[in-house]
């Protein structure tokens, strides 16, 4: 029963062409959901049919952020929180192809929250996949803007005193054209969602509830990765097309998943080109300016 050398099978893994195999094994813990999400991302990229040389991945810093280091695409592992603005520059400098931003809940919505909402507002043409593991995995499990109220983390050892964001609601409120949420066990729906998101023009967002057994799971006595992801999945209910405001994550009742938003809206570049054609009439339509003294009810 001593340690034994693994045998290399003759066949290659079907995703090996999209992997920097010389960097595998990746750093993700046993039972971590990020690997599964990554696997779904790769499947979705292939499924979407875009030429692979024309697809880029941008990540911030965090366990999830390491995705960019394992994918064999043009891939940019940036600074903590800045994946989206980096991707914005990348996108605008090169409008062709597809850009995925894959990062963690902390990266995208703690330190990166501002870029998230502004990129959604501007409708920058990128697809953002957020692995929400309810904490900062990389740094050992601190509270995040996703941590459920009263959950334990290393910086909320008694319980988290903050209410979390509803990321999907934030994305929608900010202007995202596609918003969906799944768990890391919804592998087919997740893959479909990501590939759908990749087909959209504009800011698309896919959130994935994912186990971090090492940090979040351990502190909250949730068992192994297997147990946690199953728990999320079991608690999930699919409610497509509901107002994302109602798409709550309530661990005492259920975790709402589904596709919540799928709309069309011109992208930043669409509007940039439109405006600079100089064909639109001047804003605002009318101002009634200086139209003499007219009393108004200043109440």
């Amino acid at each position, binding site marked *: 029963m001593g340690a034994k050398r693994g045998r290399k099978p003759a066949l290659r893994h079907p995703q090996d062409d999209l992997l920097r195999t010389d960097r595998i094994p990746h750093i993700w813990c046993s039972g971590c959901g990020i690997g599964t999400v990554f696997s779904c991302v790769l499947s979705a990229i292939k499924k979407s049919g875009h030429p*692979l040389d024309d697809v880029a991945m941008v990540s911030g810093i965090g366990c999830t952020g390491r995705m960019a280091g394992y994918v064999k695409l043009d891939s*940019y*592992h940036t600074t903590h929180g800045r994946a989206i*603005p980096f991707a*914005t520059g*990348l996108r605008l*400098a090169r409008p062709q192809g597809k850009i995925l931003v894959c990062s963690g809940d902390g990266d995208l919505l703690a330190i990166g929250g501002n870029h998230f909402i502004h990129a959604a507002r501007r409708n920058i043409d990128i697809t953002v996949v957020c692995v929400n593991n309810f904490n900062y995995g990389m740094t050992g499990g601190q509270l995040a803007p996703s941590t459920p109220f009263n959950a334990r983390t290393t910086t909320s050892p008694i319980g988290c005193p903050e209410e979390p964001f509803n990321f999907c609601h934030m994305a929608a409120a900010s202007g995202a054209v596609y918003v969906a949420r799944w768990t890391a066990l919804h592998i087919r729906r997740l893959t479909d969602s990501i590939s759908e998101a990749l087909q959209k023009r504009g800011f698309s967002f896919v959130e994935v509830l994912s186990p971090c057994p090492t940090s979040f799971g351990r502190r909250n006595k949730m068992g192994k990765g297997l147990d946690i992801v199953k728990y999320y999945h079991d608690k999930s209910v699919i409610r497509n097309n509901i107002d994302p405001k109602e798409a709550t994550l309530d661990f005492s009742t259920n975790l709402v998943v589904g596709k919540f938003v799928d709309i069309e809206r011109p992208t930043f570049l669409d509007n940039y080109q439109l405006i600079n054609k100089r064909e639109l009439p001047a804003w605002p339509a009318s101002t009634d300016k200086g139209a003499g003294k007219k009393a108004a009810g200043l109440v």
Partner: protein
Amino acid sequence: MAAKTVLTGTHFMNGDYACCEGAIAAGCRFFGGYPITPATEVAERMSSRLPDIGGIYIQMEDELASMAAVLGASWGGMKAMTSTSGPGFSLMMENIGLGICTETPCVVCNVQRAGPSTGLPTLVGQGDMMQARWGSHGHYEIIAVAPSSPQEMFDFTIRAFNLSEQYRLPVMIMADEVVGHMTEKVVIPPEDSIELVPRRRPAVPPEKFRPFKPDPDGVAPMASFGDGYRVHITGLTHDQRGYPVMDAIAQEDMVNRIVGKIRNNLDDIIRYETADMDDAEIAVVAYGIAARSARRAVREAREKGLRAGLLKLNTVWPFPEKLIRELAGNVHAMIMPEINYGQMVLELERCAAGRCTVRLVPHAGGSIHSPKTVLNAIETALKEA
């Protein structure tokens, strides 16, 4: 649209605008920025110039985002820049570090105002000189130029882009409020007379390409998004493949590369001008707007028969150590007027190594040195000699 890229001709133009024209002439087609006095005019002119010449202007939500977007745009294949002033420069520091570490060519123009903090937003300072060198964490080297007129804003911006492509790093233009806001004659040469350094592209097929394997001069070719090279870049310590390697050996390799490509090419990078230096006993060493006060002080000194000369630093970083070491042996004193309480003068003093007197002519900011103050310093130094 039929808008012109290079506005060949003679203009009465302010420094911020001249910076834009230099950038555009250098091939810049992406500007990501955030307004801040006294650099706002750079953003404003870019917003009106770029759309018509196939470029992108985007106003980001802050300077952190601006800097990140500029890096992204550079990897997207565009020459890219941003402009800011002190507070925004502080906010850009983390991502300037990413630019250094991922060897991303781009240009950052800091039109300095008086600080610290919000300070005097509309008034001049030179208080960010050391920040330019040291403002991001970890060890690295940078290149910075210091224009002292709108014409130099034009010329040095082109040079900044060329240096950034040549050495693959964010190059800083350390301007100041006076240079940015003052209006003066700017001569823009014909497009075909402007020499540009093109981006160095991979010469080998993707399988053979190592994104951080340097050419003999220490700098590696660069493949953009979509070129088919499937490059990975990271701010983590990485090897020549660009892969993270978490140990001291990889660290040493990487830091050697990003530091070495500057330290080993000093002669190619460093630029300066001199005036009246041949027989000078006192060297006034100055840069940026302070060099103009200095130049007049030196002229007045000469009119009085005093043997003063001017050494004007056109590049401020890397610091011209060799030049100063030599100079220190040839003069009684070096004096440096700076609109701060002693920044570049520390380097001057270090390199002088006790071989001559070194004196700062300090100024807290809000205005520039009157030539008289500098002249006084020259006279005092002569008396002490």
